């Protein structure tokens, strides 16, 4: 067996283990929390009273306008200076969730705004309250519109979790760094890590396709953009 195959093989299990133990949970949890945060922010921005709407805009402005790496450093290295000490993994989770919340809120807001006003009116005309109209009529249709850009954000997030290495989270990229530091084979190690990220993201792309098919099953073939 050639030397480089041995290196790949020896590193495979620790890399995938780090991916499964940290990268995947970090991505899944921050996406779930971020999506919930994004929905609340979108609704606050679009429908809330002026101060609430302004607060939502402020949050999106701050998060989108500052680098993710800087945000992570502030949470993990900065906050202890004012007595707030957060472990590496929860710090990363907070950082990524806040980030996802800001970006997904704009996607959700656009998806809701893209629906015709008549959908609200038809819902009210059959007696629904605002909340029922939102839940039963608007969000299910907005979900279809929002799926491709949300999947985009999720896939970006999976790759961005590698930034957590910088605040000592032992996720997949950091595992690769450690092994490369020991065997001096950065080309092989980082290539292998890249391929595993690619594999994770490929699974997500496939899931996205299935979800789009499911959410678009009421559409005639012509209306489905392929």
């Amino acid at each position, binding site marked *: 067996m050639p030397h480089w195959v041995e290196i790949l093989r020896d590193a495979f299990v620790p890399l995938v283990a780090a991916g499964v133990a940290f990268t995947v949970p970090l991505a899944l949890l921050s996406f779930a929390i971020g999506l919930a945060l994004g929905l609340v922010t979108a609704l606050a921005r679009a429908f809330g009273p002026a101060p609430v709407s302004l607060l939502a805009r402020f949050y999106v402005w701050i998060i989108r306008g500052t680098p993710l790496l800087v945000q992570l450093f502030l949470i993990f290295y900065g906050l202890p200076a004012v007595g707030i000490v957060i472990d590496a993994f929860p710090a990363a989770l907070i950082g990524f969730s806040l980030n996802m919340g800001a970006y997904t809120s704009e996607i959700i807001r656009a998806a809701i705004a893209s629906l*015709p006003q008549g959908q609200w*009116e*038809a*819902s*009210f005309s*059959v007696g629904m309250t605002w909340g*029922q109209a939102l839940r039963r009529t608007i969000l299910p249709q907005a979900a*279809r519109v929002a799926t491709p850009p949300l999947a985009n954000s999720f896939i970006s997030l999976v790759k961005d979790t590698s930034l957590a290495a910088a605040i000592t989270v032992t996720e997949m990229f950091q595992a690769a760094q450690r092994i490369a530091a020991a065997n001096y084979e950065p080309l092989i190690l980082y290539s292998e890590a890249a391929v595993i990220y690619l594999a994770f993201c490929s699974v997500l792309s496939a899931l996205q396709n299935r979800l789009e098919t499911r959410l678009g099953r*009421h559409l*005639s073939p012509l209306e489905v953009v392929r």
Partner: protein
Amino acid sequence: MIRLTNIEKAFGTNVVLKGVDLEVKEGTVTALIGPSGGGKSTLLRCVNLLERPRAGRLELGDLTVDFHPDRPPTREQLNGVRRRTGMVFQAFHLFPHRTALGNVVEGLITVQKVPRKDAEDQGRALLERVGLAEKANAYPGQLSGGQQQRVAIARALAANPRVMLCDEPTSALDPELAQEVVDVLTALARDGVTMIVATHDLRLAGNVASQVAFLEAGTIVEIGLPEVVLGNPTHPRTKAFVSHLN
């Protein structure tokens, strides 16, 4: 009795309804005709509170709502009005992600909390009534415009409203498809469904309605029997408008 008294509505400084009075007996059909922008749609939308009048009174059988510029209707009044009205829109506004049956039962299940099984039995009967029993599982995107509007009529009927509000129900359809909608509405009128219909369609205004109101610039200019308002109107504006209808 459905009664509107002195209904006033303004969008900003633009007053679109200037104290409209209208009485509709149960079991009758009233057609609203008149130029676009005259207030027909707004009047209909005031009856189910999609628009909130700034003054006036709305009576829907046992329910009375008085309007004030700075006091919105209460949640109970809103619910009461919506339960007593059904609306058919010019552009249908079916829920595209639900089947024909899903559209019809949506209000029953979500609002009235009718068990799904019972709601679907009622829903199928309503689809039967508009001649679409076999399309229960089709999505709106798979139906013709006429079929979509008939599903919308069934949806509006589901809550068994005291009055059906139809906002130009045939205007988005070609004459042939419009005919199927006219036929369904004619059958409902014969069954004694109370309706207020904004329309330019003489088949509805002339043959189905028992009274016709000519609405222009936010005022009912002339109201009476269809033969009179459409055939031999007294007001010069009505005369001019009617002469252009076919």
